[in-house]
């Protein structure tokens, strides 16, 4: 069961590139759309990572930052990110492996990867929406957009 809305989002500090770390506090004051996914290099066109890249302008229009997270290493992320020309960071939950996924309660110890889980975290670090998709099913982005719009609506 993923952490639920209303809970404080556990902080983290993970490699976004082989020499740069990003943490929750780097996204303060802006909603963060955070998604956990099982692994880099999924073999389909428009997989979750690529799909969100296409939709990045829509996330930005809603005032949100987008971040992906998996247990792959930073060098793997770098190669993957270059290959898919990603415009947003992928964080490496690599050492200790899956620690952040565990903190958000979306780790699958059997497989050693995270769930396909989505979180919207507001500017104060509170989880406002969370969703876990069946591992084989790319959740798309409609849930994110709805949650971000609700967040915007409440603030206005």
């Amino acid at each position, binding site marked *: 069961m993923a952490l639920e809305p209303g809970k404080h989002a556990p902080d983290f500090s993970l490699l976004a590139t082989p020499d740069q770390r990003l943490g929750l506090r780097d996204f303060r004051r802006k909603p963060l759309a955070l998604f956990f996914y099982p692994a880099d290099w999924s073999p*389909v*066109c*428009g*997989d*979750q990572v*690529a*799909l969100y*890249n*296409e*939709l990045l302008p*829509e996330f930005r229009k809603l005032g949100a930052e987008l971040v992906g997270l998996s247990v792959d290493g930073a060098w793997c992320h770098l190669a993957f990110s270059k290959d*898919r*020309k990603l415009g947003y960071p992928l964080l490496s939950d690599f050492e200790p492996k899956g620690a952040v996924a565990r903190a958000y309660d979306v780790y699958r110890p059997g497989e050693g990867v995270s769930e396909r889980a989505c979180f919207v975290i507001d500017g104060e670090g509170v989880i406002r929406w969370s969703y876990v998709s069946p591992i084989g*099913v*790319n*959740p*798309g*982005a*409609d*849930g994110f*957009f709805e949650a971000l719009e609700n967040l915007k609506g409440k603030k206005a």
Partner: protein
Amino acid sequence: MSTLKPPVGPHDHVRGAPDAPITLVEYGDYECPHCGRAYWILKSLEEAMDDDLRFVFRNFPLSQVHPHALAAAHAAEAAGLQGRFWEMHDLLFENQEFLEGPHILQYALRCGLDLDRFARDVESEVVAAKVKADFLSGARSGVNGTPTFFVNGHRYDGSWEPGPFLAALNALRENVPDPPH
């Protein structure tokens, strides 16, 4: 459950019986090889289900990974303005390795289009806006890659291999009552 937003309407390209009990919507990309394969499967489904199926295509060009996808989508919509959407749609999918400008012009010729008008329309605001609107509606509906299918308004996450897809659609057909006459 992800649902189609907006529902199928007058802005859509529809083929098949208007009162068919099953409406299948595809969000697709003309340069996506999976969509290219699905194209032939869909043809066989349309044939097998006949008047029980109506098919709708909406554009979801993944322009970051497929450099010709957006221009191809514009070409189909521009052909649509001359009443030849499906002719262009079919040519694009049947020749999806050849989507450069000169190829597209060839297809326009084969569709019997007024080429001057076509050349203006592919560059037009109207056509760009239609493709963009399709893309955004896909994002809102829960499109999760290409192709993504919606069956009677709900995202279909099952297999789209011919056997299982036809079985799933037929099973659904059983549950849709015939319209009163």
